[in-house]
C-alpha cells in the first residue's frame, strides 16, 4: 500500500524558498550509557531553570519525563530480558562481587548470590534512551497554536517564540508525545528548540555535542535516516533482532519525526506512543461535525418556536 514516497519538506511547505536541508536527531539508544550529559548540556546552554530534585524511587530516572524545564530526558528501563545476542563484554562465568566478598578467586558455584543471579544467567538488561522533542513533519502543537507563537524554522524544526506565547496551553495536550509543557511560574509553554541559535551559527545542538558515545547524532535528516537503516541492518546481522527504528517513517501519523530513534523494545516501554497521529488530521471532520451540530441547534430552536405557536 505504502511506497516510499518523497518525504514532505516542512520548511518548503511553510513558505521557505531557499532553505538549508532539514536537520534532525537520530538517537541510537543501543549505545546510550545513561550518563545524562545531554540533559545537563541542554540545561546549561538554554538556561533552562532547575526543577528540583525529587527522588522517584522507580529507577535511576529522577527526571521522569519531558516538560517545560526538561528538553532532554534519559529514560532508564530495567528489564528481566537477556542482553540480546550480542556479547556485551561481561564475563558471565566470573562472579566478581562474590569474589570480592570472599577476597579471593572463589569458583562461581561456591560464590554467594549476587545481583546478576536472581534470574537465569544474564536475564537482566538496562535500556537507556534520551528522549527529546520530535520536531514532527506534521506538528500538532504548531497547528493548534492560536497566536502563531510556535513556528517552523528554515531547518524544518518547530520553535516557540516566547515573546508571543500567551500561555493558552493548547499546544500541551495537542502533542501526541507529551513534549511541550507550561512553566507554572512563567505561564508560557516551553520545549526543545533543536538549539535554533546554535544551528544558525553552523554549530550542532548542545545535547549532541555533549553525547560521549554518539548515541545522539545530529545532521541532515536524509543522511541520518540512511545511517539509521544501515545501523539496524548491522544490528540484525549481529543477531539483535529486536532493533527497530521509531519515528523514521514519512508515512506514519505525524509524517515522520525530525528526531527519531533506534529502540530495542516496543515504543511504549520507553514512554513513546506506539502509533501517534497528529490530532489535526481529523480536524476537517471535526469542523464538519461542528457545522452540522450548529445547524441542528438552529433547526431545533426554530422548531421550538414553531411548536409553541404565535405570541403568548
Amino acid at each position, binding site marked *: 500500500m505504502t511506497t516510499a514516497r518523497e518525504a514532505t519538506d516542512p520548511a518548503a511547505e511553510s513558505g521557505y524558498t531557499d532553505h538549508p536541508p532539514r536537520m534532525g536527531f537520530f538517537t541510537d539508544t543501543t549505545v546510550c550509557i545513561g550518563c545524562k550529559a545531554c540533559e545537563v548540556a541542554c540545561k546549561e546552554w538554554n538556561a533552562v531553570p532547575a526543577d528540583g530534585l525529587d527522588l522517584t524511587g522507580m529507577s535511576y530516572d529522577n527526571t521522569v519525563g519531558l516538560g517545560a524545564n526538561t528538553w532532554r530526558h534519559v529514560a532508564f528501563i530495567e528489564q528481566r530480558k537477556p542482553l540480546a545476542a550480542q556479547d556485551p563484554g561481561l564475563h558471565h562465568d566470573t562472579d566478581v*562481587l562474590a569474589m570480592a566478598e570472599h577476597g579471593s578467586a572463589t569458583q562461581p558455584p561456591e560464590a554467594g548470590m549476587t545481583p546478576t543471579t536472581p534470574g537465569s544467567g544474564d536475564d537482566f538488561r538496562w535500556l537507556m534512551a534520551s528522549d527529546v522533542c520530535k520536531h514532527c513533519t506534521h506538528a500538532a502543537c504548531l497547528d493548534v497554536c492560536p497566536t502563531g507563537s510556535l513556528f517552523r524554522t528554515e531547518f524544518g524544526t518547530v520553535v516557540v517564540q516566547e515573546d508571543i506565547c500567551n500561555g493558552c496551553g493548547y499546544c*500541551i495536550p495537542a502533542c501526541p508525545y507529551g513534549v511541550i509543557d507550561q512553566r507554572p511560574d512563567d505561564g508560557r509553554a516551553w520545549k526543545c528548540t533543536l538549539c535554533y541559535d546554535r544551528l544558525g551559527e553552523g554549530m550542532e545542538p548542545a545535547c549532541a555535542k555533549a553525547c560521549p558515545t554518539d548515541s545522539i547524532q545530529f545532521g541532515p535528516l536524509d543522511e541520518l535516516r540512511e545511517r539509521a537503516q544501515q545501523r539496524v541492518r548491522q544490528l540484525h546481522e549481529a543477531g539483535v533482532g529486536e532493533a527497530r527504528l521509531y519515528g523514521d517513517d514519512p508515512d506514519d501519523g505525524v509524517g515522520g519525526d525530525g528526531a527519531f530513534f533506534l529502540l530495542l523494545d516496543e515504543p511504549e516501554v520507553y514512554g513513546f506512543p506506539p502509533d501517534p497521529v497528529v490530532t489535526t488530521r481529523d480536524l476537517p471532520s471535526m469542523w464538519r*461535525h461542528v457545522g452540522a451540530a450548529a445547524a441542528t441547534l438552529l433547526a431545533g430552536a426554530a422548531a*421550538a418556536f414553531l411548536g409553541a405557536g404565535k405570541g403568548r
Partner: protein
Amino acid sequence: MTMSDGHGSLAARPAREATTGVNTGRRRGRRGEQPVVPDTQFTSYYGKPIINGPVWKSPDIPAYLFLGGLAGGSSLLAAGAQLTGRGRLAAVTKVGAFGAITLSLGALVHDLGRPARFLNMLRVFKPTSPMNMGSWLLAGYGPLAGGAAASAVTGKLPKAGAAATAGAALTGPAVAAYTAALVSDTAVPAWHDGHRELPYVFVGSGAAGAAGLGLLGARQGEESPARNLALFGTALELAAFKRMEKRLGMVAEPYRAGRAGLLVRAGETLAAAGAAGSVLGRRSRVARLLSGAALLAGSACTKWGVFEAGLTSAEDPKYTVVPQRERLLRQNHAGGGEAQRGNPAVPQSG
C-alpha cells in the same frame, strides 16, 4: 545489608519479583469486586502518562465551555422570542447571552499563563487552531450579543438592536458548538476520539442550559418555546452521549468513572429532571423555576464532567497505548504483512 541476606528474603519482598514496565491494571476493582473481563495488558514507562495532560484549570475552562453554550443557545431564544412578541423572554435571554459570553471570555483570559497577551489570539487567522477561530468568532459574536442586550435594556436604537439580535442568533450556534472542536483537537483520548459526537453533546447541553434560563426568566405564558428547547436539547445531549460511549469502547471509561463520572451522571439526571419537570409541572410556577435551575445546573455538570474525563484519560497511559496498539493490529491484519512497525522481526529497509 549484605548481598546474601538481601536475596535470602526474596519471598518476603515481592516487589523484587515485579516485572518492570508491565502494568497489570490492578487499580480497578478497588471495591473488591472481581472484573469479569481481565484488564487489557499493556506496557508503559513505569505507568507514567504518555501525553502531557491539559494544564487548563478548573473551574475556568469548564465554566468557559458551559457559558459559551449557554450564550449561544440564549441568543437563539432571544431572536425567536423577539420575532414572536415574547418581550420578557427576549430581554432575559439577550442579557443572559451577553452576561454569559462576557464571563466565558473572562474565564478564558483568566486561564491564560499571560492574560495581558490575550489579544495575541487575534494576530493571526488560523483555521487549524479552533482556539484561534473561536477567538475571532467571539470577537464577532460578543459585540452583537452586547448590542442586543444594550438595546433591550435601554430601549434605544430598536432597529440596530433587532439587527444585533439576528446577528447573534446566526453566530450563536457556532459559539455553542466550536468548543467541541477545541477540546477534540488534542491528543487527549476521551476528547479526540469523541470528536464526532461531542459537538452534538455540546449544542444539546447549551440548548438545555439556555432553555433553563428562559424558564427562569420568562413571564407566565411565555415559556413554551423554552420548554420545547429543553426537550430538544436534553434529548440531543443524551442521545449523542450514549452514541459516543458506544463507539469509543474502553476510551469512554473515564466518562463513567470517578469524579468525571459523577458529574456526567449528575448532568444527565438534572437535564432529564428539568426537561420532564418543565412539561409535567407546566401549570406550577415553582415547578417551572425548579426545572429551569435544574437544566442550568445540568448543563454546567455535563461540561464539567466532559472536562474532567479528558484529564483522567490523559493521565492514564492505558487510554493512549491500548487504542493505538489495537489500531496497529488492525492495520497489520488489513495490510497483510506490510511494514509492521513495532515488530522487531521485520527490518526497516529503504
